[in-house]
């Protein structure tokens, strides 16, 4: 049976829909009300608060911590500045992605790694030749994400320190209601947002303080359904949906490389060898077989298709994680890939999908055929390859100039997220 997170008392009291799912062994709310849309709009227009405790959290420290993380991750961790957060992935020896997550440099030789899949065993296994300490703090650390345009104000009201100067993909330590917390300017919504990491015993205090601070700003509690829509709009891949950890795959064809997932920007090859570097270098030279692309569904065609059934167009309002075939064209072309995540984007008024397609079909502007089922019949309609993120507001990475100057050392926010 799943376990309750430290926030469970609060989340369960508010989860009127009784819609829960299991996430990494914990109970997680799908949506607090029967419909997730208000929660979605809160993130895009005010702020949303979501319990992300089920993420795996690992502390890596010791004299070789930097060298070790450089060895295991495709990203050059050594280049992370103090207080900087890096997004990256780690691969197996053949360059196949095992997991993705963030790495926060908390000290000279101390890092915090978050991941979607349990990675402790793998890291320990790789650590044989390094002087590092790896500690799984997943069970000790509660996490909550505060996302949306009002997130900065809400967090500012709740924290002892001024957080307005905290730049994109940076971390700081502060206190909320007397509890020591780590705050990172990160998230999974593609919007302005923060994640707050607090010890279990202070979790409820922090939660209450954030809820209290959020009240005047229209903050809403956020479930996974709304988060899913947000992350597709932001073009973020999800482990177990858009790709699978090589560790869990049975066939090589089920695995992916960082390049194939559009994470090539996070792969740094111009340095000492690391796990999978040889294969990745080869792939960079030879090119990838697959590419992760965004797709815009052609609305007019969709409408015409429904019309031919004498129906108005209908699309589910929540995101779909059912993989759907993608063809070379809308007629008889061969299958060239699959759309793994799709949703109706309420801000863009557009049906969007994340899809893995064979590289020759991955150029922006390519028109492909997407399978759509109407009245149990399968049809193909036109979908066009577009750049991701689908939605990328400036506020995501912007930091108020005055605050930046006063609070944090001035340096451009360089994180080229997606």
């Amino acid at each position: 049976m799943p376990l309750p997170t430290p926030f469970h008392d609060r989340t369960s009291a508010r989860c009127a829909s009784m819609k829960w799912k299991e996430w990494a062994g914990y109970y997680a709310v799908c949506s607090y009300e029967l419909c997730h849309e208000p929660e979605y709009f809160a993130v895009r227009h005010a702020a949303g608060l979501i319990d992300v405790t089920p993420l795996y959290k690992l502390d890596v420290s010791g004299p070789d911590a930097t060298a070790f993380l450089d060895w295991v991750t495709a990203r050059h961790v050594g280049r992370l500045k103090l207080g900087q957060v890096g997004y990256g992935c780690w691969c197996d020896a053949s360059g196949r992605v095992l997991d993705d997550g963030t790495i926060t440099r908390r000290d000279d030789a101390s890092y915090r790694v978050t991941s979607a899949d349990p990675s402790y065993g793998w890291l320990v296994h790789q650590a044989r030749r390094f002087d590092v300490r790896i500690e799984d703090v997943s069970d000790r650390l509660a996490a909550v994400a505060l996302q949306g345009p009002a997130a900065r104000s809400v967090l500012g009201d709740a924290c002892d320190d001024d957080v307005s100067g905290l730049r994109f993909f940076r971390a700081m330590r502060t206190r909320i209601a007397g509890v020591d917390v780590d705050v990172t300017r990160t998230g999974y919504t593609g919007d302005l947002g923060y994640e707050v990491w607090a010890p279990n015993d202070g979790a409820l205090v922090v939660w209450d303080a954030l809820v209290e601070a959020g009240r005047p700003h229209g903050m809403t509690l956020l479930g996974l359904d709304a988060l899913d829509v947000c992350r597709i709009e932001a073009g973020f891949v999800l482990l177990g949906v858009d790709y699978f950890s090589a560790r869990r795959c049975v066939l090589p064809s089920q695995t992916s490389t960082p390049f194939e997932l559009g994470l090539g920007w996070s792969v740094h090859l111009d340095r000492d060898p690391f796990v999978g570097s040889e294969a990745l270098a080869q792939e960079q030279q030879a090119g990838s077989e697959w590419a992760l692309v965004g797709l815009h569904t052609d609305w007019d065609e969709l409408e015409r298709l429904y019309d031919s059934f004498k129906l108005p167009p209908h699309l589910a309002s929540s995101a779909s994680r059912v993989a759907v075939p993608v063809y070379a064209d809308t007629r008889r072309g061969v299958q060239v890939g699959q759309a793994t995540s799709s949703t109706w984007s309420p801000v863009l008024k557009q049906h969007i999908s994340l899809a893995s397609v064979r590289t020759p079909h991955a150029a922006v502007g390519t028109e492909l055929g997407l399978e759509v089922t109407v009245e149990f019949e399968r049809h193909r309609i036109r979908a066009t390859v577009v750049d991701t993120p689908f939605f990328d507001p400036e506020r995501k990475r912007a930091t108020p100039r005055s605050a930046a100057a006063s609070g944090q050392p001035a340096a451009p926010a360089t994180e080229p997220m997606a």
Partner: protein
Amino acid sequence: MSYDALVIGGGHNGLTTAALLGQAGRRVAVLEARPVLGGLAARDEFAPGFTTPGLLQDTTNLRGAVVEQLDLVKHGMRFADAEPNVFAPQRDGRGLVLSRNDVHMQAELDPVSQADTAAWLDWRASLGRLRPFVQRVLNEPPPDTAPGSIRGKWELARTGLALRRLGRRDMTELLRVGPMCVADWVGEWFETPLLKSLLAGPAVRGGWVGPWSPGTAANLLLHECSSGRSVASGPAGLVDALAATARAAGCELRTDARVSKVLVSAGWARGVELEDGETLHADVVAASCDPRTLLGLMPRGALALHLEEQLGAWRMRGTTAKLDLAWRGELRFRCRPDEVFERAHVGETLDDLERAYDPVKYGELPQRPHLEIHVPSIRAPYLATEGHQVVSILVHWVPLDVLGGWTDERRAELERAVLATLGEYVDDVAEHVVASRLLTPRDIERTYGLTGGQVQHGEHALDQLLHMRPNPSCSRYATPLAGLYLCGAGSHPGGGISCGPGQLAARAILEV
């Protein structure tokens, strides 16, 4: 400095590789970490005036082809004239001498069991039929299992054909015996407990197995099919001849040259760095150290990750200790006081061996260890002072790390157990022992740079033989890293003083 080839480790296999490469005109340097050449076959003065001719004792498995190819006899090696007999003493009874000479064997066995005399001849005959095939397997590189290797398929087909040529009965017998335990196999043939124990000995020594462990019959089969004459002055005599041959072939033999790192650039092994910082360059680096020691010399990322992991799991759990005794007078066994024996086997029944093996699994010391005794000074009196002998005892099975660690008390306890066991067959042991030196598996590890003190460079278990030795990707001596070769006992055909790995590795290097 630049060479054609560098050989890491100057043991008998490293020297064999070096000498063969040198003969082929390559410029070779051998890098031995210790002050003396020879590794486990190096002579060692363990007490003033007392020298043992090698940690290992048995030279009967030396490959004839190596002797011929290197012309070792010309360089001073001699085969012993005497039969390499082994004596097994008994508390009640005359004991038994195991001989390769059927007439002698018959004389020994007849008084004990005539059935066994008959069985002995049959057994030897059946081994004689299998011998060519087994020798063929031992004298060739293991089959190439790489997919799509035409040569591999061809070789496999030829081996398969050779197997069929044995005839249905012998072929099925070979396949049947391979995975069996040695106790069952010898039990099918013989009834005399002492004979069974004596035969089982070579099949179980060195490994984490006892006579009732499946797979040990294969070890006996390999041993019986490859053993012949022994070298006159023991392992050290062989090493001297190998070194002389190597020098004559132009090899540079460096002692006190401990390799600290294999140099790798652009996917090639380019040379080595010594502990004192000196770097040596070469096109070929051949490692005769054990696979896990080699792993420690490789820079991170030089070997594929999975290979690193798999070699890391290579099983090297040493179980052999060595007790060298300076012995006043001659070693005489109570049950046959009129004869002296160069080699003896202490362990009267299969169960004695099995009971000697049991404690090692729990990190405990054997109460009555199985002893493999060698008295080299009988034929080489110069190894001991006047009126004395060198009694070298390989003690089986001793854990690498005894529970609670190797304290002085535990060492004394082990030594007591050995001498007490010996005392069951030899009178007044304490009065004979002038000096002694004990090497536990940990000591052997430290002294010889041998992971786990495992004298075979990897236990002889079915999954660590042939193409699995030490890994399918480097079982044919070349490793996936260009320029890096294996030439030690961690490769086929494995441990013991055969020089086979060294020879086959040299062949592989020269083929390129």
